[in-house]
Every structure is written in C-alpha cells, then in structure tokens.
C-alpha cells in the first residue's frame, strides 16, 4: 500500500483507538451514573449527551474551532489542526454512541443486585466495578465498537477542527474527499471500499454481541 493510502488509514485507526479509550474511561462511568439517576438532572444530562446524534457535525466543528482556534479562549493550547484537537472533537461527537448502549445495559441489571451489594458493604464505586461492569459488558463492548466505527467514518467535525494535514489530521474520510476532489477515483475507491468492509464487519460484530446478550 502506498504512503498516500497508508497514512490516512493509520491516522484514522489511531484516532479511533484513542477516542474509544477516552470514551471507555469517561463515557462508561457517565452511563452508569445516568442509569442510577432520577429526575430533572438525568433528563438534562441525557439530552446533552444525545445532542450530537441530531446536531450537524459542522455545528459542533464550528464551535470547537471558535473555542480552540488561535483567537479562541483555549487558543493558547494549540489544539486546533492537531491530533489532540481531533480526539477532543471525536470524543464529543461519539459520546452518545458509547453512553447509550452502556446505559441501557446498566439499566437492565435488576436493582436488587445493587441492593445486595450495598447490604454487603460495597460502596458505589465498588458496585460499579465488581457488579455493574461485568454484567453490562455486552453493552459496553457494543458501545466501544460503535464509537470506534463512528469515529472512523466521521467527516464534518474532523474537517473543521483538523483541516487536511498529511500524516497528522488527514483521516480516511478526509482522504476520500480529497481524492474525489482531485478526481483521483482509483484512490477514492480503495479507501472507500476499506471503510465499507470495516463498517460492515463492525456492525456484524455489534449485532452478534447484541444477540448473545439477548440470549444470556
């Protein structure tokens, strides 16, 4: 595979891996917290987490550009048009893809399990680690797969926040756009086919996990 093709593939895989890792660290505890919450605050937080599902990626990208750009409040951190900037955009944009499946899995655990844990003297964090996580692993893995696949296919946010910088922020979707714009259809075909195959494999895995989860 030529460097032109390999570089965006590697950049995309690195971005999806780091984004998924950050989402596992932040999104899964958030999903558990939401599953245990009641009332107005839960509704507000759930809506906030879900906003990227309906928000055009360019809107999120635009505000991130204003926030992280040279003249923005966080401009001095130099995050715009950089890999860490891409990660921040991708984490925000893929947050619901991690939180929603994990939250559903946590909510499916009977409340009596946590009550028993509490009666044995387990604190909230211990109940999360020793009871909730193992029982919700199918939902968490599904969320991780969805987040990984969604990050690989993301376009609008990464274009706005990352631009199109070779070996740094030129991810697969941007490389495909670039190739089509240059009328280089051969390159566009190869990269697009790779994304189609990967997306199908990811969805197949998520469906299989969901079926297994349903049976167990």
């Amino acid at each position, binding site marked *: 595979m030529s460097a032109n093709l390999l570089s965006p593939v590697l*950049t995309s895989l690195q971005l999806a891996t780091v984004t998924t890792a950050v989402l596992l660290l932040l999104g899964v505890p958030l999903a558990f917290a939401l599953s245990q919450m009641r009332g107005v605050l839960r509704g507000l937080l759930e809506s906030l987490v879900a906003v990227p599902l309906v928000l055009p990626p360019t809107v999120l990208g635009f505000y991130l*550009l204003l926030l992280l750009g040279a003249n923005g409040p966080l401009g001095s951190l130099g995050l715009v048009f950089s*890999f*860490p900037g891409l*990660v921040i955009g991708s984490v925000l944009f893929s947050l619901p893809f991690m939180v929603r499946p994990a939250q559903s899995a946590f909510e499916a655990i009977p409340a009596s399990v946590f009550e028993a844990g509490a009666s044995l003297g387990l604190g909230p964090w211990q109940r999360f680690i020793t009871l909730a996580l193992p029982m919700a692993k199918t939902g968490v893995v599904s969320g991780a797969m969805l987040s990984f696949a969604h990050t690989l296919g993301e376009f609008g946010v990464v274009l706005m926040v990352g631009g199109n910088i070779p070996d740094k922020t030129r991810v697969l979707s941007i490389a495909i756009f670039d190739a089509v714009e240059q009328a280089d259809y051969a390159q566009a075909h190869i990269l697009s086919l790779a994304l189609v195959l990967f997306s199908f494999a990811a969805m197949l895995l998520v469906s299989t996990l969901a079926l297994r989860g349903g049976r167990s």
Partner: protein
Amino acid sequence: MRAGLLLLFGWLAACAPAHDRPVLIATASSFRPALEAIRSELQQMCATSISISSASTGALITQANQGAPFDLLISADIELSKLVKAASIDPPFARSPLALWVRPEASRAGPVAIANPATAPFGRAAMQVIGKSDIELVTANSASQAFSFVKSGAASAGYVPLVLLKGAKIPKDDYEVIDPDSYFAVMLQVLRLNDHPQTDCLARSLAGEALWPHLAEFGYELP
C-alpha cells in the same frame, strides 16, 4: 485540574502520528497537480521533504488565521491573500487561465459547474464571464471539485482552471480557453507563514526560472 489537562493533552500529542517535520505547503487546489509534478525536484533543490494540503484559497486562509501549521500558502487570489494575518506575501509568480470544459458525450443540458465564488477565485472569474445569464449552475467547494463534477458527469460542463485540464490530458477539442480580457487575472503567489529554515528556498524556487518550463507545460503564464 490544569495540570491534569496538560498531562492529557501531552499524552494525546504523544499518540499523534510521528512525523519528522516536513515543510507543510497549503495550496490552492488548482495548483496541486502542478505542485505534485514538481514536488521531487523542489525537495531536491531545497533538501527537504514536503507535505501538501489543498483546498480553496478561501478555506486555506481561514485555516491559516485559525492557527493551521502551514509553512507556505500558495494562494490563487491576491485579494484574499491580504486577509492572512502575519504573513509575508511574495509577488505573483504565475497567471492561471480559465477554460470552459464541455463533456462531448453530455446528452442533456445539465448544470454547469463553477467553484464557489466566495472562496475560490476561479468561481469569481467564472461569474464574471457568465454575467447575468440564467444558466443552471452547480457550485463546488473548489476549482478541483468543479473539475471533478464535470469528470464524473454530474455536470455537463464547467468553468475550470486550464491547468487541471492539461494536467488530466483532456483533449483540446473538449474545452475552450476563455478570453483573458473577460475576467480578472487569477494569479498565484506564495505567502510565507512560518520561519521553517527551508521556506525561503522553496518560495524562491517556486517562482524561479528552473521550474518554469514545468509550470508552462500545465498552461501557466507569466504574470
């Protein structure tokens, strides 16, 4: 909290793909094929490696002003170039003609592709040529995308840079070079945005005589 953020960003930066700091040239999309063609010669002349990022001139200027780490920006729009902050602007080094490309096999009167007049000089030039006629237009992000629209058959014709047609070896019978007096001169110029040690060499070489024969082959003219 701030230390935690710095640690997180440091870790993320460490995860970023490794690169040995090549010179990053952002170029107007119409110049990209020519730049790719002279890339290895430029790299040899200045003993450096080059990375290329392309988009419409307007999009690149917005990115540069937001902190994109470009070393050089090759602009195709003298007016828009003035909007770049903290740049040293070289005189124009080439004039880029406009052409009307009509697909010979176009069986129906489809839309005519032009680049976005707000961000791409070839779009503004095309609008000057078209005037107030009511032909159906489809606007592309850049001159390259306008070219791609015609190539794919999505548009039956397009006002595109001559250099893209020559670069793609489109038969001469399929396009018409537009009278240069009917639109403003689309000029290429180099903007120096960074103090990378090789930027001076690259800027001088781009405008120098050694590479001019290659640019002339693409249809560029002296300014």
